[in-house]
């Protein structure tokens, strides 16, 4: 018994009075909100609005200065780490290894030893698993795709993605957005922090607007509202 919640009607993320200080600067200011299961949230806002900080706090990479985060029913992120996928602003990949070697290693951290799982993840993002080129020689778009494959290789219930389309050409970014839509359709919850909001419009369920360290508005997309009805 881990004490974690798996029921589908409970929120996936509960933020309570979340505050994060960097020195005297408050990057997150008293955020309290909940996010439901099986939806694709797009977090938007100006530079310095606190989007990436929020994502890092939710992922457990930063400790909040005050308040709490409940993920999948647990306040201990390590307890549910195997159910979360995180894609950072940087690719989080080893340049000296090829794509499959990277995925094999990271899948191993989640207890997965099956090469087919890694191949499927690569195919899912449009990469060739047989490509033996090292990641250091990948284009920026290929790195981002592989980074996405790394985040989904263990089939997480909750995906936290920070700027997945940065330095990616529009065509590849649209493909990635479509992949995210498909993953959401499988019942996963996805959080995407991005400056390229229009790319996500066709697949997003809700836009979460941030400014000055606070969530200032939540805007449900007509498609998602229709689906809910």
């Amino acid at each position, binding site marked *: 018994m881990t004490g974690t919640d798996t029921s589908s009607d409970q929120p996936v993320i509960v933020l309570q009075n979340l505050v994060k200080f960097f020195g005297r600067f408050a990057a997150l200011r008293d955020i309290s909100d909940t996010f439901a299961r099986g939806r694709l949230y797009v977090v938007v806002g100006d530079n310095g609005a606190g989007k990436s900080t929020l994502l890092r706090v939710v*992922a*457990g*990479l*930063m*400790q909040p200065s005050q308040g709490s985060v409940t993920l999948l029913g647990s306040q201990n992120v*390590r307890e549910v*780490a*195997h159910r*979360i996928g*995180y894609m*950072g*602003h*940087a*690719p*989080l*990949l*080893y*340049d*000296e*290894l090829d794509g499959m*070697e990277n995925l094999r*290693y*990271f899948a*191993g*951290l*989640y*207890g997965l030893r099956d090469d087919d799982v890694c191949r499927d993840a690569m195919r899912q993002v449009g990469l060739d698993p047989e490509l033996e080129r090292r990641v250091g020689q990948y284009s920026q778009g290929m790195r981002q795709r592989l980074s996405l494959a*790394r985040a989904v290789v263990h089939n997480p219930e909750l995906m936290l993605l920070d700027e997945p389309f940065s330095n990616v050409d529009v065509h590849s970014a649209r493909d990635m957005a479509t992949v995210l839509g498909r993953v959401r359709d499988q019942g996963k919850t996805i959080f995407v922090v991005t400056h390229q909001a229009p790319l996500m419009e066709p697949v997003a369920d809700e836009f979460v607007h941030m400014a000055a360290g606070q969530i200032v508005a939540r805007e449900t997309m007509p498609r998602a509202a229709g689906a809910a009805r």
Partner: protein
Amino acid sequence: MSQISVTRSTLLKDLRMEWRSKDAINSMLFFSLLVVVIFSFAFNPTAEESRQIAGGLVWVAFLFAAVVALNQTWARELRNQVLDAYRVSPAPPNALFLAKVLGNFLFVVILEALMAPLFVVFYQLRSVGPVWQLAVVALLGTWALVVNGTFFAALSIRTRSREIMLPLILFPISIPALLAMVDSTTTILTGDGTPDFWLKMLLVYDVVFTLVCLLLFETVLNAE
């Protein structure tokens, strides 16, 4: 996932990356080679003098060379912020630490094996005491260097001048181990007495610092 399987896969990944880049081993070899050659020309010692000074010379050379490998260890994890991928995974933090220690241990032992014949040739070293005891000192001493070095390298990765920070923290705390390594090596080389006390001290040092580092590593890994 078990600690052993993650340690094994991380170690194999690090060995593969080092095999491809040879960053650490090349720098360590080059540095040690310079120390051997320069000190040999500077002092030109007799065989008897060599036995007296070799313990200090060898271990100081390996200590400085090891720092090169220790800095490389975590530099790889910082590029592309790969360490974050490990931190968000459910893999045990100590598995990462153990893999890094084992990898560094292997690199430094390989360096010692390659450099030992050169020390023998350049300093006309002939051990009066049993040579196998030198191997025991090398293994225990190397573990002492890398277990602390790996831990303090992890501690200093988020500091601005980490290359400078590591020796500043590591060298003072390694003094007891260094003393034991140098004295036991000199005792064996000269045949004056037995190195038992120093070997026991090294063993206790290794056990204590390995346990302390394992206990504290998770805190260091997740420090902001």
